[in-house]
């Protein structure tokens, strides 16, 4: 029962996507072109995210720690 609801919901979402991007109105070869372009873009974005985002997050985290660490030290020295 839940699977059927989920499937209906996903189908409804796909129909909304088709209507919003107007691929509902396109001829089949135009749809192929459009979906190929979209899926290629999506794949490239995910691939880039997979390679670079983890490195960026760890660098950013280190930078934040460094900043907070500095602040903490300054605050401590003033109190002393």
């Amino acid at each position, binding site marked *: 029962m839940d699977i059927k609801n989920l499937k209906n919901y996903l189908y409804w979402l796909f129909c909304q996507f088709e*209507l919003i*991007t*107007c691929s*509902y*109105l396109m001829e089949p070869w135009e749809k192929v072109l459009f979906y190929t372009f979209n899926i290629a873009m999506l794949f490239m974005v995910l691939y880039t995210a997979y390679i670079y985002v983890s490195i960026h997050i760890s660098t950013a985290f280190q930078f934040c720690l460094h900043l907070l660490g500095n602040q903490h030290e300054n605050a401590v020295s003033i109190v002393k």
Partner: protein
Amino acid sequence: VEPISLFSRLYKRPFNEAFEETPMLVAVLTYVGYGVLTLFGYLRDFMRQWKIEKCQNATEREEQKDFVPLYQDFENFYTRNLYMRIRDSWNRPICSVPGAKVDMMERVSHDYNWTFTYTGRVIKDIINMGSYNYLGFAQKAGTCQEAAAKVLSQYGAGVCSTRQEMGNLDKHEELEKLVARFLGVESAMAYGMGFATNSMNIPALVGKGCLILSDELNHASLVLGARLSGATIRIFKHNNMQSLEKLLKDAIVHGQPRTRRPWKKILILVEGIYSMEGSIVRLPEVIALKKKYKSYLYLDEAHSIGALGPSGRGVVDYFGLNPEDVDIMMGTFTKSFGAAGGYIGGKKELIDYLRTYSHSAVYATSMSPPVVEQIITSVKCIMGEDGTTVGKARVQQLAENTRYFRRRLKEMGFIIYGNEDSPVVPLMLYMPAKIGAFGREMLKRNIGVVVVGFPATPIIESRARFCLSAAHTKEMLDRVSVSSGLSFAHAFYKQIQQLFFCRLVQCLVHKLLNLMFKVL
């Protein structure tokens, strides 16, 4: 808000009109849709230009390639690439009387709407939500039809002359006296075509040196008549009385543009119900302004005559006002009376003047006798003079249908424009693909609707327009609202507004801002 409260004592009943603003996300997504279609439009045009694809639309001939280009403007681009894709929702041929249910000829297209072929099958009993049949007088059986058939056998179908020459029948005189009595004016004149009534009579009433103040969303016939007359035209915002008052004040204070002479006449053009918005004119305020600034009022009751008011006498009856306050009452017989043609009602001197000077009276053929008889019978039915209460029952049924249908659609989460009491119900679709999808899906479910897109409405505000009728039953309306919900246009907007995603983004943004302020 202040000027409205000054005028609120003029209204005897609450005036509920709403034009909900387009949700931001929906507007963005609509532009995305149009952007994608534009890109594909350029691609297709490129392919047509370089002969990769067969060109099926009109182009210039080889010899005319160096002339001024005919088909390169936006309108033609839009027609070739967007309108053609969804063209099957319009010009559908019907083959029965357009009552509450209608028969339609089935047609298919094998080359994506460039050409259509008829399969020969007739789709029967489609619920008709597109015809202007407010009181249900579009019937093929009944008193109106019998009277019209009798007159047809007496007078024939054609009149073969204009009103001023040999085309003035006793039926026309009878009709005009009846219409004048129905409206509560001194005299009236009837014309064969509603569009021609506006476009041919406004030039007879105003000319150069006069000022026309016309509503933003007036019908093409009013705009054409105003432009043909040669008067100066100024536009005020839709149903906005502050804008109208400002224009009137400027007109009185500054006069004509160069010479500063006072205007010969100031004519305010408004409609009773605006058919694309479903809004009703703020008539008490317009009349108060007209009296204060001594101008004339031309009220086009094409959609509101027969459809509004406790006795079906239009927007003047709806607000409980005096018909003598409106200088020129114009209306059509197409919508609520099941016939064709238009009328103008007013003071006797005005109508006598129009009988002589109107282009329509001089050049246009007069109304056909069976049509005249249909109008006479239906007006008598609405007034109750035929001895039954059928007319009153129809007017009440229409009001009930209006309230019920609007409430149902609002509960389902659609955005509906216009006044609570208007039988014209525009349901917002916004996205171009939804225009085509809605039309097709409703036809699959045996419901015929009119969907409207770009040139008739602003580009992102496309809509489906339901015209309710007294002939619709409650279960027909239920079927229509349920089918609307299923046709993919559904409640996307309300869901987006309440969407968890948007709230989450807002919370995150707030938290981030707080964190930044703490760090710095």
